[in-house]
């Protein structure tokens, strides 16, 4: 089933890319929070919210990476 394996591998590649995007998102969130804090414009609730988002992004990136790894393995097995 090479066609299916190729499709699965493509999904794995996209999810890996998304995991990197989530990491980027976390970095952007951190930058935004820090900028507002530094400028003194950050609402008092913002830090807590950003921290929660940062943690979620990190977890989501890990979940996506794990899913991508599993998909890659699945595609390899299906190919052989």
């Amino acid at each position: 089933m090479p066609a299916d394996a190729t499709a699965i591998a493509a999904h794995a590649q996209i999810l890996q890319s998304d995991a990197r995007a989530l990491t980027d998102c976390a970095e952007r969130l951190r930058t935004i929070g820090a900028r507002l804090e530094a400028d003194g414009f950050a609402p008092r609730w913002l830090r807590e919210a950003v921290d929660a988002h940062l943690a979620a992004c990190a977890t989501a990136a890990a979940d996506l990476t794990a899913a991508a790894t599993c998909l890659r393995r699945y595609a390899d097995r299906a190919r052989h």
Partner: protein
Amino acid sequence: MSVAKDGPPGRTADEPAGGASATPSGRTGAAGASLREAARELVGIAVAIRQAGVHATAALTDGALLTALPHAPAAALPAHRALLRALTDGAGLGFAPDGGRLGTLAARLGSLAGQESLAVRVLATSLRLRIAAVATDHPELARDPLIARLVEAAAADRDLESVRALRSLFKDRGAVRALSLIAPILGEVLALRALLDENPLNDRTAWLIATGEGRATADPITGISNRAVAALDTGAGAARRTDLTAAESARLGSEASLLGFLRNISLIGTTGRVLVQSVEGPDGVVRHVVQAPGMRAGRPDHDSPQDLLGAFSSTVLDSNPYSRALAAAVRDYGLPPGAEVALVGHSAGGAAIMNLAQDAEFCARHTVTHAVAVGAPVDFKRPADPRTWVASVTNQHDIVPTLDGQGAGACVDPHPGWYVVDYSDATHLFPLCHGIERYLANLADDLPEARDEMEARLAAYRGPVVRSQAYRLFDHAPRPDGFPFLSVPAHAVDGPAGPVELPIRCLDGGALTSYFAVDAAAAARLLHGSGFGPAAGVAGRALVTVHTAWNRHTSAGGYRELHVGIAVPDPWGPPSARPRPLLGPLLGPLLGPDLLRRADRRCSGSFLAGSVVDAAAVHAVGARLWGGEPWLAPLEFGLISGSVRVAAGAPGNRLLTLHGRLGPGLPAPALDLVGYAPGAAGETLRSCVRSRGPGRLHPLPRLRLAVGPGSAHPLAHRLRELGLHGARPLLCLSAGTRQMLQYAAVPLPAP
């Protein structure tokens, strides 16, 4: 007064107005800008996170994963498990299935169960930053504990607390102040609630509002589809020319300018009308301006597209009856191909003119150079011609411009290049601040820079107004007046005051026909030599009709008329065909079945003993209409709430009066009338009056006819001869509103 100058990229505005109430705009400050920028960045992050959920959902639901399962069963299960975990991990993406049928269904079920995704939570943070940004412009928002409570409750997804907070706000401040207070952040608060609540139907509209990707597609509270509601506003749109009143015409500016156009919109008001004007610009070129007011008060759906439904559909649809009616008005106005047109609209009119501006066919026929929308929800409108200069003027306390989902807190500019004046004025309360008069006053007095810029942009439209035409707009093309009853061939006959069209067509009038029993011998004396006789009657008495009418709107102008006639049977009928009592206890014994026939099939009628009209133009053609020689005299006709006040002759010299109450009435149609009278050449003339409309038959009228005691008028003499002074009618037929056709009398051989 404060005004927006930056905010979303591309927004433009004026400096704060001078004066004691002017304060620097927060949106021009660093805090507001920084918070909006952060909110915009969070939108990008939320979109990226959501996309990861879409991709993971696509992988999980891809058939390839299942078809490959037999080839690698040991690897399939971990892959599925990892995908499921990624899509449902509350500490990661949250509940994130999205995209495709299965993903959308799962997302809705998740929403129902109160599950949220990380993307939604990030977007909620973006909305809260937008609210914080607006609060920097409106310190009253930050200071107000009830507003803070509302925002906190919405952000924390505490539905009951949100409702309580809103109720407290309205109870404490009153509806007007509460709405005015919350207006700048209304879109954000509603979107926040919709994002986080358990209603899956409003999730998409919340996403659109929060990301600025498009206009709200549904009510953010209930999730009811906006398009479904807007679809109730049906119609091809139509426009009919209408005259402004003399007072309105006098107040129309003779020199065109932006403020002048807005004054015109204020002048014609929300009356279902629009105005089209032609202006000779400084370069001598004549250009044209369409001026469209907002919603007409009254029922939510009436025959005008300027109703509540029309306002709604103007906002959420790209084309609607209002914009199509505007196009019809411009078509009727008759612009040369390629003519330059500026569109100016307020409120629903602003949305409608933007719909017109984005109509590719309209823009192919005309060059829409400018579109100015004031107090209108137009953020997601796009002119078909990219060269069209668009200006949007909105007061941040005005809720109406936020109805498309974007308000003062918008962090994404959906239309770079527009000239946007988004200002706030704490002294103005909604709905007061939505009025065209308030916008006009703000532009005239408080926003000089914006006004001057817009006037400069519209410089080609400054100059003398060379033509003005008002139009009344309709959802559906209205039936012609009086159709089909009054749609009859007509011809003009010359009169001293100009031609009069016959038949006279009366669109709206009232009439009263009173039937009196008089001495048969007296009636016979008046009929002597006419060829008619004996008179129709009852119980040995002759029947006399006194017919009075006020024809309020006719093809010959408004006029009143009065006719006294002696009821006569078919002059050519055999004696056996003379009146028979076939109509039951009321009409039958008196008048016979012939009375109920249409005038063109009726043989019996009234031999006219005298006629009076009060309009010279009609009097001049009276002989053609009725025969004989009608008299010209003042007439009064009042038929209100069952009370009759008819008078002929000038006050102090009355010919007759007919006063009293009609008493109880039975429904009956307005009846046709047939009159006979001698012609000038000795022939007999037969005249017909066709009537249409509801009437009432009054079997016990309490009227009394009085002949003027000192009147020497010939008709007064005849009335006395007939013994009608002090008489009461046997019965009356009244019609408060009727249409009427008065045909010219036709000559017949003497019977």
